[in-house]
């Protein structure tokens, strides 16, 4: 009995069953770019980007400082995966900007991808954009009412370049302050070559009922390689921001390194939702951090399905009393994928609370890792942290790791951390199959059940899409 392993018997089915099939988005096409910084990274590249974008001098300095820091910092392979050494920085294009329209037509989009869009219920216009048929997603028609309403309320929602040029007085004091250039090697890289991303300012007391989405803006750079996003929520305001989408997104470059900074002033609330489904050749190395002042709340809601290697540890610095930070994270790692995700909670004021809930699913030879840091310094009172991370292993070759680090100084705090690892048990599958579900449906139900309480935290349309995505792939796999 020793080596009997139920998963061995269902390997192929389940592997296919849970496979989200990134290859559906894995196609490329030629685009003629008006501006191209060429291959490789040097001071000239940085100068080129600044010149093309006609940025002010302080940004040029900022970029050069970023480049130097990037070159000085070693790869963090003393704790991170050796796979990072496979990135060849000299073969990457650091800046591309359109001008001409892509030549691909809707007829050329693979049928499977159309099918996926159909089943996920993605709106017609978004499909064209996601498939790379349109370089820009025309948001005017779909969201014009909303945009008008936004500007009436004084909300600024522009690209990062426009932000730093047109709104310097708001942009500059916070830019690079939550995540300093030297935070890590990849935040330094982003500081040197950033382009694209959003700048959002929500005025005092404005509560946005509808979430803002990255592709509302007419800007081909919004899904950029080195996007830089800064969101400032002024006192008492509320905003939810969403980026990415459940459908596979095409990506021609292999390195994606974004920096996202959030600032929630007194009593403000920011929710940042990400669904990442890059194709399986992408290194996704992202730095995300928020600064929460008194009574403010920052929530990161994060779902990672695609990419070859994702390293992403959204953080919240709770700087004001009673500030609150939360990270909710779902990761799915398939063959050849490593989802290295986690959370950083830095308590820097009394009575601050933080919560981390992370669930990962490892399929086939996929590997998922949770890394966390909770820091409660001396002289603080009444801080609380709760961390839970659960892992589900589907196959005998799947792998999962957990490496939290919790520092508590002083005695008026409560922290707790729990992690568990489990698999879909034979009994569970048998029970469901006995009631007429086939194996794929049963596995799908079990996986959906595992992440159900987190999926509910996503905005409705996202959670519906996520569920469909898993169901869809299950159905197709069982004959």
């Amino acid at each position, binding site marked *: 009995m020793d080596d009997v392993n139920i*998963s061995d018997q269902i390997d192929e089915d389940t592997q296919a069953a849970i496979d989200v099939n990134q290859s559906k988005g894995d196609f490329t096409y030629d685009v003629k770019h008006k501006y191209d910084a060429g291959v490789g990274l040097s001071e000239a590249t940085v100068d080129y980007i600044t010149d093309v974008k006609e940025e002010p001098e302080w940004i040029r300095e900022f970029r050069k400082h970023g480049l130097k820091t990037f070159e000085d910092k070693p790869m963090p392979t*003393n704790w991170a995966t050796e796979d990072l050494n496979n990135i060849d920085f000299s073969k990457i294009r650091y800046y591309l900007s359109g001008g001409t329209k892509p030549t691909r037509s809707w007829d050329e989009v693979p049928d499977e991808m159309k099918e996926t869009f159909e089943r996920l219920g993605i709106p017609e216009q978004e499909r064209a954009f996601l498939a790379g048929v349109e370089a820009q997603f025309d948001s005017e028609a779909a969201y014009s009412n909303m945009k008008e309403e936004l500007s009436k309320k004084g909300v600024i929602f522009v690209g990062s370049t426009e932000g730093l040029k047109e709104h310097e007085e708001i942009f500059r004091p916070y830019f690079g302050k939550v995540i300093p250039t030297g935070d890590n090697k990849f935040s330094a890289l982003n500081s040197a070559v950033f382009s694209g991303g959003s700048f959002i300012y929500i005025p005092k007391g404005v509560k946005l009922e509808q979430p803002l989405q990255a592709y509302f803006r007419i800007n081909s750079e919004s899904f950029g390689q080195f996007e830089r996003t800064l969101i400032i929520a002024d006192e008492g305001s509320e905003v939810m921001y969403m980026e990415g989408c459940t459908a596979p997104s095409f990506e021609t470059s292999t390195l994606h390194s974004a920096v996202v900074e959030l600032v929630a002033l007194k009593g403000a609330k920011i929710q940042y939702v990400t669904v990442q489904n890059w194709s399986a050749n992408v290194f996704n190395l992202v730095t995300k951090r928020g600064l929460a002042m008194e009574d403010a709340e920052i929530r990161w809601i994060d779902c990672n399905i695609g990419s070859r290697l994702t390293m992403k540890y959204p953080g919240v610095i709770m700087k004001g009393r009673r500030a609150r930070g939360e990270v909710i994270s779902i990761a799915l790692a398939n063959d050849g994928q490593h989802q290295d995700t986690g959370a950083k909670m830095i308590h820097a004021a009394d009575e601050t609370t933080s919560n981390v809930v992370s669930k990962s699913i490892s399929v086939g030879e996929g590997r998922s890792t949770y890394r966390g840091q909770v820091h409660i310094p001396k002289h603080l009172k009444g801080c609380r942290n709760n961390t839970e991370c659960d892992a589900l292993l589907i196959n005998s070759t799947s792998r999962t790791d957990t490496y*939290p680090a*919790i520092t*508590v100084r002083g005695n008026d705090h409560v922290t707790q951390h729990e992690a568990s*690892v489990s698999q879909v048990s034979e009994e569970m599958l048998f029970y469901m199959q006995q009631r007429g579900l086939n194996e794929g449906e049963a596995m799908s139900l079990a996986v959906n059940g595992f992440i159900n309480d987190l999926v509910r935290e996503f905005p409705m349309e996202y959670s519906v899409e996520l569920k469909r995505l898993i169901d869809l792939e299950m159905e197709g796999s069982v004959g």
Partner: protein
Amino acid sequence: MTLNDFKAQKLQEFDALPLPSRSEENWRFGNLKQGKHETIESFRAADTSVTNAAFIHSVTDLSDDQLKRLAPLLEKSGATLGSPKVTALALSNIESALFIDIPSNEILEEPIIIDYSVISASANNTLLFIHAGACSQFSVVEKYTSNDNAPSTTVGVTIIHSEASATVKHLAIQSVQEESRITFHHRVDGGKDSNISSCILNTGAAWARSEASAYLNENGAHANLLSVSVPNENQEYDQRTFQSHASPHTTSDLLYKNSLYDKAKTVFSGLIFVEEKAHFTDAYQTCRNLLMSDTTEANSMPGLEINADQVKCSHGSTSSTIEEEEIFYLKARGIDPQTAKQMIARGFLIEVIEKLSDEKLETLATEALDQKLAQLRLG
């Protein structure tokens, strides 16, 4: 390998290995100033006395058969959790090592007790190798105290290897002088269906680091790794653990509890590692910190690396203070708040000691614990 070869090899390792550095995960949050042991060039054996000595031998005084049994233990004696360099130097003093060799089916009623008196102003080593024959049952206690009231350095190595179905209980009680430093390297290797418990009780030293690992390479092996620590003032306890599962149906359970007073600091870093073929593993890891003063610092890094299927693993870590309600409950029954806190802390720590499920060992551990708690009360 002869003992002389082993000695030469360890000296060579000592020369070749680098000093611990900040970039090592094993030294995250750790105190490198203490851990580097830069100035130490050689070790001397701590003064040792033994109770119940029937099966304990000096390694220089072994039969060929016994040397054969010792060999695999020597092979696995190198440290892997951050202090290999200083441990190699301590191990090079191999002629001072003791070997407990328990024959198959032997059942000892009384624990083997080894008293170490570490000598001040010098670097002490204690080296203990334990071989548990098939179906044997016994317990071993190591007690560390200082010979006078001056600081010392100690490296204690304990390597336990068990054959099938053996039951071994090991308890190390550390209460050396308060400005001293001490490093433990404990390793247990569990044979088929064996059951090994290893517990460290820390009350003394300015800086105590324990590196404890359990290797479960045969079906049905079970290991308990336990620790109780009561640091106060500026005491710093650094705990690194490793639970390795390489065969199916192996189980391990780790429970570390710290009760921190004054400016005390603890670091706990543990890893459960489940190899690819080690299906049906059950492994648990819990670290609990009770923060008794508002200037304490507790760091916990519980870790899991799972490569197998049909595995039940969990880890948990908590840090908190005593709830006001609990103190109120005892106050309402006429107990003053100071005593109430001590009672709760004692109860919290005793849970670990009870896991040894051996009355004699529990008594010894509880005595050492109560001694420290009484000291805290006076201060």
